[in-house]
């Protein structure tokens, strides 16, 4: 065997495993098989590899002892009743809607007495604008003089926001998890 033959064989033997794994291209496979047809050393090396593949594929399959699945499930705690996936989203939406409604209601209660323009005002845009400015100034003034209007609105707003926050936090709390381990 010449040095050229030796290095060629060594290079092809590197390809034996990928060949048996089916990872060579058709051209590479053809080259390898062509060489093995004329090279006894590479052919016997391929046989040893094939024997290993065969033995590995024949390793008997082992099974766990009887009752294995019972031991798996027996050690696990019961899970908390699963929540339907739409519940957190619906609760959140309901909370937000309620908060918005409460805020609106509070605002209405605070300014309701001042919200009714006369027919005369409603027909003239300029007068209506002036009236709006007066309303705002009057509301701020009234709130400063007698803050009950403002407090009423703010109380309801805070109540609604608090409830929405409660719903959000409750939705974000993870459910009971198995504690095993």
């Amino acid at each position: 065997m010449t040095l050229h033959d030796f290095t060629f064989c060594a290079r092809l033997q590197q390809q034996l495993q990928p060949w048996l794994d089916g990872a060579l291209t058709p051209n590479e496979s053809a080259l390898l098989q062509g060489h093995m047809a004329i090279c006894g050393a590479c052919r016997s090396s391929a046989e040893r590899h094939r024997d290993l593949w065969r033995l590995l594929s024949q390793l008997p399959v082992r099974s766990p002892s009887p009752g294995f699945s019972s031991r798996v499930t027996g050690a696990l705690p019961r899970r908390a009743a699963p929540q339907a996936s739409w519940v957190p989203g619906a609760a959140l939406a309901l909370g937000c809607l309620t908060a918005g409604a409460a805020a609106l209601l509070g605002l209405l209660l605070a300014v309701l007495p001042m919200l009714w323009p006369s027919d005369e005002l409603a027909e003239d845009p300029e007068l209506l604008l002036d009236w709006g400015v007066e309303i705002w100034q009057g509301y701020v003034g009234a709130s400063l003089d007698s803050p009950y209007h403002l407090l009423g609105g703010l109380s309801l707003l805070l109540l609604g926001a608090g409830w929405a926050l409660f719903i959000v936090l409750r939705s974000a709390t993870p459910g009971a998890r198995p504690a095993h381990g």
Partner: protein
Amino acid sequence: MNASDDDLIAQARQGPQEYRALVERYQVRIYNLIYRMVGNPQDAEDLALEVFWRFYRSLDRFQAGAPVYPYLYRIATNLCLTHLKARRTLAEPLLDADLVPAPEGHPEVEQQRREQEAALGGAIQSLPPRLRAALLLRHVEDLSYQEIAAALEVPLGTVKTWLFRARQTLIERLKAEVVTP
């Protein structure tokens, strides 16, 4: 009709007893893989239990439609590698020759087969854990190079190198007693 993995996952989310069907579907494959990795039935069973407990705890995070088995063998492989690292001793020889059922064919042929299996099992156990894992994922689980790379979280080239080294080692070790007739 066999339930799909998705059906079994949905069922398992209801509780441990409902999880049993999923365990029974995969327990033999997982146990067999672990057994070949650690070479000891008791350790294999303990580790297989841990695999299924871990999977149960991760059910809430498990993505619907994702394949179950790759998830399980990743848990199993990682657990085995950690276990072998912690043990830091050579694994005990495989007990194949003792555990294989009584032969039904020609006694001498069966005896030879059992000896081959035991020798191969011992040779596999002598491999470094990561090489062993790559070899078993390829030959026992029939995974592709890419799947092995993903399971062991190493580059593709590393998998090829590990497989090459593992097989060369096995061929060398078995040359005298198994592969050569």
